[in-house]
């Protein structure tokens, strides 16, 4: 009797399909958990989404759109242009150096807003010195691969 019950738990894993065996189980668990979350919180879901929408378009709450989306845009541009430029200067780290100088300066400027003359000088020096130092120490001294 016991062995009959146990045989219900028998499993054979086809080697050709073995790559899907565990991911399928995990996916089903994930779907089940998501369903439970949606069922238990459906009352909070719609107002939450509406509020998130209002915050993102700037109608509610304190959300610094300029700095947040500016960070995202500058970071995306930094990564993209670094990739493009690394084809021009392969395996030298120059792409990293040039793009980092621009990125550090522009992102700092975005965060400061309207810098005083003193702040502006600090931003420029920081944008020139820090990436150059990082490039020299990492790429030249330590021989670490840089874009």
């Amino acid at each position: 009797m016991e062995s009959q019950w146990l045989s219900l738990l028998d499993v054979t894993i086809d080697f050709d399909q073995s790559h899907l065996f565990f991911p399928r189980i995990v996916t089903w668990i994930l779907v089940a958990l998501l369903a439970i979350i949606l069922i238990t919180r459906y009352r909070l879901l719609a107002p939450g989404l509406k509020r998130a929408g209002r915050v993102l378009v700037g109608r509610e709450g304190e959300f610094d759109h300029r700095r947040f989306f500016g960070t995202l845009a500058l970071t995306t541009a930094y990564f993209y242009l670094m990739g493009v430029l690394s084809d021009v200067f392969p395996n030298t780290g120059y792409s990293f150096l040039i793009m980092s100088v621009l990125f550090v300066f522009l992102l700092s400027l975005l965060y400061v807003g309207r810098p005083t003359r003193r702040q502006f000088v600090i931003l420029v020096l920081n944008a020139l010195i820090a990436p150059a130092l990082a490039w020299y120490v990492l790429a030249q001294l330590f021989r670490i691969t840089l874009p």
Partner: protein
Amino acid sequence: MDILSHLTPMFFALIAAGTSIGIIFGAIPGMTATMAVAVCLPLTYAFGLENGIALLLGLYVGGISGGMVPAVLINIPGTPSSITTTFDGYPMAKRGEGERALKIGIVASVFGGLFSAAVLFFFAPVLADFAIKFSYVEKFLIILLALTVIASLCSNMLMGVFSGVLGVWLSLIGTYSITEGGNGEPRLMFDFMQYYLIDGFSLLPVLIGIFGLTTVLLDAEKGFKDETGQGPISLKGGAKFRFSVFKGQLLNLVRSSSIGTFVGILPGVGGSAASVLAYSQEKNFSRDSSQMGKGAPQGIVSSESSNNALTGGALVPLLSLGIPGDSTTAILIGAFTLQGIQVGPLFIGNNLDTWYLMIIALLAANVLMFGIMYFAIRHIARVIEVPKYILYPLIIMMCVVGAYAINYGIMFDVWTLLIFGVFGWVAHKIGLETVPLIIGFILGKSAEVYFVKSLESYGNYSIFFTKSPIAMFLWVLIAVSLAFAIYLRVRNRRQASVES
């Protein structure tokens, strides 16, 4: 004797450098020990294993310790684990005892750190010896237990479980590795993704994205406002620190360090849990707790000794089972893999020299942390004033280096950093729990191998319950952790309803 050859001036210089950088990261609110390790990871690529470990452990200890500085001076914990330091540290600073409060914290921290290093030294090899006997079944159950404990201690258990499973799911993207006994076929992605994701997402870009870029995005969203509303309190003047303040604090030190070490051993439980637990125990059991919360040294002692004790504790499951104890050790596991070291039950036995060097590095990091912080606390305190508009662009730059260099120059790893940086921000917004997600991501692939190989060998699901007494015991632990979480939830709900 081989060990002595590694104890070079460079080894200790790197510990000192790591500790100093870690203290600076910890001292800046919003920047954590995890971020320090993530950002400085590229520096270890150039060093050998021993020197790399020296730097990383210095960063870890320094990062945890530095959190007390803003906690005392501006009432904002530099790291989550310093939350309870604010309760008594800030009131002391307000009445002109800022330096005294910090030095009490420094001494308590070094005690907690050394205590947990001793526990690590004696306990990890015993646990590893025991874990060597585990088969695939028990190894899978250990991972299941780790994920259950992490998820059950999250603020929302359901979201914690979901996050952990999501982490496992993300780790499975890519091919089922032939070297692990798989069939080499891709899954969980479209055909056009195969070029980039054939080996899945690399661990370190994922971690650097979630712990580095996400933090920057969260602060950018707030617009870098001055959270304190006032400058830091000056350390000049005020009552002097004397070691006599520790008279009668031995029990507090030992109890809080034990709690911190134990919480560190539990996978995924954060440092804030350790310090809150130690603080509340001191409040419950001390003879006179009437001054706690108003500037009592005993509060700082319990908070700081417990959060530094976390460091050694979190390394216990990492080095004996291959399971990270917290988010920082999650990054350490990636750094070890980079150096060709596979942490797990065989690690200590097969790498005895490395093991001893790690203990020496941990001890030295704690002693150096004490020296640096005790004698230079007035200078370190000024770190709080460094503006984030200078720091954050540099952090993103260093994140790029870490992500790009990990696989010797793959641009997709840099994009992975951005993808998971944004994902971490979204996860934060919708209430996903980062730590179970990360631990699930790290352990997911191993869980698959252990699960599938167990079933291929035995052909029946019941093997997970009947394989051995250890397997049964692990199921009991899983049930206990779930029951404990439910008990805590019910108790908190009752308390909340009584209070309201």
